[in-house]
């Protein structure tokens, strides 16, 4: 049954895996609704929803960024097929995060919201991450991929910047206990590190070998 762990999954299996991942990605939302209906969202439910949706957006983002390092380390590539879905789930939770902020937290008081964004670097950075993720979500379709070609790749490299901004946004939120944002920063650095290693160092080694041989 779990043969795809050894061999690459078939098309049919991929469909099932996708359906499974999709369902799992909805659990945080279902949980929030469940807790909300039970009036169990802590004394400060708005903050609870903000923290929860923010966390899951970051989680999805980091999950998205894990797929390529897995390919680099194991040589398997089928999991890349989950990338768009995970990326869009990140955008989905980011949207819930922003809606909670604009609606529940600030009741669409645009003057207060503008002031909040302008005066607090933490909010500004988070807002920037959101704005940058909009074009990525909009160009996530197959047709946009085909239309943009090389440009699409360049555009979607914005995800690295978004990840950094998201973690800075979290880091500046905590008053003093930085353990949690630090953990995510470390994960991101490892994920970046694997990419950088394979892109530059591993390649460099190969080239130097070739050069040595040709001498």
């Amino acid at each position, binding site marked *: 049954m779990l043969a795809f762990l050894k061999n690459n999954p078939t098309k049919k299996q991929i469909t099932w895996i996708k359906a499974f991942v999709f369902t799992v990605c909805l659990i945080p939302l279902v949980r929030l609704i469940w807790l*909300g209906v039970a009036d169990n969202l802590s004394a*400060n*439910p*708005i903050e609870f929803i903000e923290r929860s949706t923010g966390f899951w957006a970051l989680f999805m983002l980091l999950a998205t960024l894990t797929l390529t390092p897995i390919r680099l380390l194991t040589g398997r590539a089928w999991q890349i097929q989950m990338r768009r879905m995970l990326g869009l789930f990140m955008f989905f939770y980011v949207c819930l995060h922003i809606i909670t902020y604009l609606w529940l937290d*600030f009741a669409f008081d645009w003057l207060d919201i503008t002031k909040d964004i302008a005066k607090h*670097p933490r909010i500004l950075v988070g807002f920037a991450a959101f704005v940058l993720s909009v074009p990525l979500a909009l160009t996530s379709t197959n047709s946009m991929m085909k239309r943009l070609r090389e440009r699409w790749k360049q555009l979607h490299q914005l995800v690295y910047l978004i990840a950094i901004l998201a973690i800075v946004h979290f880091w500046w939120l905590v008053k*003093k206990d930085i353990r949690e944002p630090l953990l995510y920063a470390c994960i991101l650095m490892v994920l970046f590190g694997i990419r950088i290693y394979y892109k530059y160092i591993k390649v460099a080694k190969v080239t130097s070998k070739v050069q040595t041989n040709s001498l």
Partner: protein
Amino acid sequence: MIIQRKSDIIPSEITPKTVFDNRREFIQKAGFGLIAGAAAGLLSNPLKAATVSSGTTEGAGRLIGRANAPAIIKAPSFGAHQKIANYAKTTYGAGEKLTAYEDVTTYNNYYEFGTDKNEPAINSKLFKPYPWTVSIEGEVKKNKTISIEDIYKLAPLEERIYRMRCVEGWSMVIPWIGLPLAQLIKWAEPNSNAKYVEFISLADKQQMPGQNLQVLDWPYVEGLRMDEAMNPLTIMAVGLYGEQLPNQNGAPMRLVTPWKYGFKGAKAIVKIRFVEKMPVSSWMKAGPNEYGFYANVNPNVEHPRWTQSSEKRIGGGLFAGRIKTQMFNGYADQVGQMYAGMDLRKNF
């Protein structure tokens, strides 16, 4: 989206929940192997507790802090809702809708017991606030100590319903029970060199697991200028909602200065030191450009992280929006004159 709203139950209707809570307590106590104690607690507590609400004038529990019943304080009570008898009602906070007891006691910033707001209620269960002694030091006639029982007897206890505004942009309305700090200071007999009062909280990693993490420079230190400490609004709280302070709210004794951000309210105070120079508080050390000595609630002075011009009132539900933060948290008439002529932007 979540559409559930918190119901608009008036505080006096909430009380039967105390009975409900006692059921949990029973299980907790049983878990600690204190079945006998729990049985006694059940006999003395919940039935009486059920009749007492925040709105009633007299507590129905046994007498505390009066000459005939100091023993009750000594008895360790694992979060038992020990009622405080004989406290006077005051007009402070008349017309304010109280924040639910459950919210006041489960949403706490008390880093000694963890940095998440739900942690203090969990991690403080084994904390022992009684017996307790407070030492008085520094610029005083004579160094001395006082037991918490004697502090209960220093002055008639009063209920003060105060707004509490946290620097993080949320607020509550809490029915504290305590005595004016001025009464305690009078007893302490500071000399003329005393310009400031420093409050030092307990440092005890055994009882306060959060102190294993150096998020702040332990012990927690706070301070007030002498006139602030003597202001009639300033109280040393020993209880809330008619009962002894729950551990997570700063048992057995904490500072309450309602016109200042909540972090000024040092909890579990073991030492009060009178000093000539302005004390450096734990938060001033942790972030000098974020947290000042005065920490007066001020909608016009922004904080680098949180909006200070408005706040969320806890218990308002999902769609209540924000309320405007008032200068000195609405206590400008009582405290404004102390800061006349001061640049509150510099002295934040």
